[in-house]
């Protein structure tokens, strides 16, 4: 059984509870043991690295150290958390001085051995696409999915590792494996506005609007994401965006574990899809998936 240190992140215990639930369900099915890091602290998100470089490294360091101590790869379903964990790891590797300071403020030593993986990579690379295929109960035939990666799981290039920076394919490959059709589009890694959700909302509306518009133009039925931040910008702000663009976008936004959950045979309520602002029920019913 694959044991992985699990860093859910703040959003997954509140605004993105459904992501957490779906993730745990799917991992249980795939026999991936998610060991939640006890007493994890927030990764600091964008705020930390624009306020203090040291905070940005020290906050994730605690979780990295725990994972290293317990000899497990560390993962987070949230792209922002993943990015912060990975960047903290890489920055400490690049800058020994920073590492020294982090060790001083946390009072613990880090040997730089933690393996930070995004949840998609844990599933597709550690667990294996073929193994996932073997578990599928229901093919998601006829569903056109726009895979939206966002910034934080692909950039900068060091974070991306095995995938391509400009046109990543990891989620597209997953979608194909589930029997659905990944659409070809070029807004996969455009920014949704991310952390500006509260502060500079008008930017979020514009950027997320562009993404939703492009997905619609390219013929997507739904947008699949791997980040609660992207989700809240694309989903919770979608009514406002629709109003702004004077069209009814009505584009359901699902987490990738929810889409996997559908293929593994879970239903609407198991995956807490009722929590979304844009209800995917009519779409999924029309495709015969629910």
């Amino acid at each position: 059984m694959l044991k992985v240190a699990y860093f859910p992140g703040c959003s997954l215990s509140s605004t993105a509870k459904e992501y957490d639930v779906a993730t745990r369900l799917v991992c249980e099915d795939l026999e991936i043991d998610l060991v939640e890091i006890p007493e994890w602290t927030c990764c600091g998100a964008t705020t930390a690295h624009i306020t203090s470089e040291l905070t940005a490294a020290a906050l994730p360091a605690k979780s990295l150290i725990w994972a290293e101590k317990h000899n497990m790869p560390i993962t987070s379903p949230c792209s922002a958390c993943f990015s912060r964990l990975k960047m903290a790891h890489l920055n400490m590797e690049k800058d020994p001085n920073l590492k020294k300071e982090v060790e001083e403020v946390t009072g613990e030593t880090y040997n730089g051995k933690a393996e930070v993986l995004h949840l998609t990579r844990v599933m597709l690379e550690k667990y294996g696409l073929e193994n996932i295929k073997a578990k599928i109960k229901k093919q998601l035939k006829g569903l056109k999915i726009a895979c939206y990666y966002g910034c934080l799981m692909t950039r900068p290039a060091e974070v991306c590792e095995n995938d391509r920076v400009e046109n990543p394919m990891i989620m597209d490959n997953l979608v194909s494996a589930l029997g659905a059709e990944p659409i070809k589009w070029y807004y996969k890694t455009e920014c949704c506005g991310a952390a500006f959700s509260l502060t500079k909302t008008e930017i979020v509306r514009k950027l997320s609007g562009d993404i939703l518009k492009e997905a619609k133009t390219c013929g997507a039925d739904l947008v699949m994401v791997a980040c609660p931040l992207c989700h809240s910008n694309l989903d919770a702000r979608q009514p406002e965006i629709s109003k702004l663009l004077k069209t009814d976008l009505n584009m359901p936004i699902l987490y990738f574990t929810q889409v996997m959950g559908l293929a593994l045979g879970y239903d609407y309520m198991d995956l807490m899809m009722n929590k979304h602002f844009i209800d995917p029920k009519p779409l999924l019913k029309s495709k015969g998936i629910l």
Partner: protein
Amino acid sequence: MARIGVFVCHCGTNIAGVVDVTRVAKYAETLPGVRISVDYKYMCSDPGQNTIIDAVKKYNLDRIVVAACSPRMHEGTFRKTIERAGLNPYLMEMANIREHVSWVHSDDKELATQKAMKVMEMAVAKVRRSEALSKMFASIEKRALVIGGGIAGIQAALDIAGAGYKVVLVEKEPSIGGRMAQLDKTFPTLDCSACILTPKMVAVSQDPNITLMTYAEVVEVCGYVGQFDVKIKQKAKSVNSKCIGCGVCVTKCPNRKSLSEFNEKLAPRKAIYTPFPQAVPNVPVIDRETCTFFKTGKCKICEKVCPTGAIEYTQQDEIIKEKFGAVVVATGFNIYDHSNYGEYGYGEIKDVISSLQFERLINSSGPTDGHVVRPSDHKEVKNVVFIQCVGSRDESKHRPYCSRVCCMYTAKQAMLLKDHYPETQSYVFYIDIRSAGKNYEEFVQKAQNDYGVVYLRGRVSKIYERGDKLIVKGADTLSGAQVEVEADMVVLANGLEPKANAKELAQLFHMSYDQYGFYNELHPKLAPVETAISGVFVAGCCISPKDIPDTVAQASATAAKVCALFSKEKLEVEPLIANVNQLTCSGCETCYNVCPYSAIEMEDKEVRRGDMRHVAKVLESVCKGCGACVGSCYCKAVDLKGFSDRQVMNQIETATTELSTND
């Protein structure tokens, strides 16, 4: 006791600006054996050299040390100087106090001066043990090898042959012509590339002094200037000399599975093919990788249709050994592979094409007969975006250099497009326009003013497809605006890089090359077509990116160098070679085994009366003076003239002692 003269050069302020040269000269006077020491502004100038000659006569000097620049720069100069003064040229040593001292220790003048004194002292120590050496001569094989049949190789071959010497021109592809044959028109005159190139190609094939070997590669090189032993692999063409070039085989060949290299993979080509209609020689070759017969044993259509019975499936690769006195390397360039640019679509967007692809598209003998259409759907284009500096000036892609020709050919391509299709609109994204050359700046201005090409100063960040259009997201830094252009086609100005196997070829000749694989000239300014290997010359884009006029000029320069070499009856060679003291040689044969040139011979000789022994002997005309034998001799019987054990030991001893005057 030796009578040594030390001459310290200021090199203007190059040395004197950092090193206290008078102190160096003063210190020299305190060294044993030094009779006179002088410092002078420019030692290599005429008066400087005369100072040395006068001093030799006046003080009856027998050994000279010149503390100046690198011996790689001026050793030859000063050897000649003291020869004029009547001394043996090998009784001179240079102390490198410029490249190795003043230029690299300018941070601390005191330490630099002390080091200069020490470096000079080491040279004095070495020259004390120097011996007079007599000149050696070697014969010259007056045939030249030219590698690469592009415009550089063609020009060099024609010039050398024109002077009456025999030339072998080796080309890897089935035809000569190279990159220039692929181009449509040339900047800034807009004359047709093929029209000015093909007469030269024909001249090569008709010149009785030139032997043309196409579909061939150099595989092994031994020897040295005057006597290069070269092995050339003639790949099997599967077509013999009976071929009259009628082309029936090509027409009838049913196999269209490969893509034409000459047309930059824009069109298929047959398994039996000539790269282009004007090919020289006009003899097709069979590509055995794709030919149906070679893969399945069935087909043989070409053999059936050939009117002269020229198809020969049984032909084998052949290794041909030849001797040459000099070599011209002109292997040219590849364009940068833009599939490394993810933001420009990883080379997967069909209508994002390379500059060479554009040349083929707009060329009337190209795959589309000169129609500029989109490779994806063969539709004509309206808006075309040109992006400069793709694989140039880009550190993140490990190509930080400027490729020199892209600004110009982009302007040319935009103009040609407008000439062909007046209703099209071109946009050029550039960083800086580099148009240094006769009539070049005027040419770029013309593109902007007369042809209405819109120049935008900024790199493009992303290209993506939306429907059948390409969205180009760029910027114009001059106005500070983001610019988005909806284009039908994007042409990338791919930078120039060396051929993929440039390094392997360099290693055959032991030429040095830079981190990209461009060959190093002997001196970037004063010996731009020579290499560190005497007798090997370089021309064209294998040294660095350059345009056609510069390439042709360099090619002719190599020809002049080759002819100058061949005009001598005998070649003077450095006598810095190994010699064996047969009295102490134990006959162990280690040196015989390590010598890379087989310059050691074992002989049974009576070294002393009644002492018959198996001993080593150096073949003087073969030895190149690498010293591998010296380093491996167990009984110190082998030594190397000019770098003898005694000389080096003296240097080591001096290097490790403190300066004697500083108390």
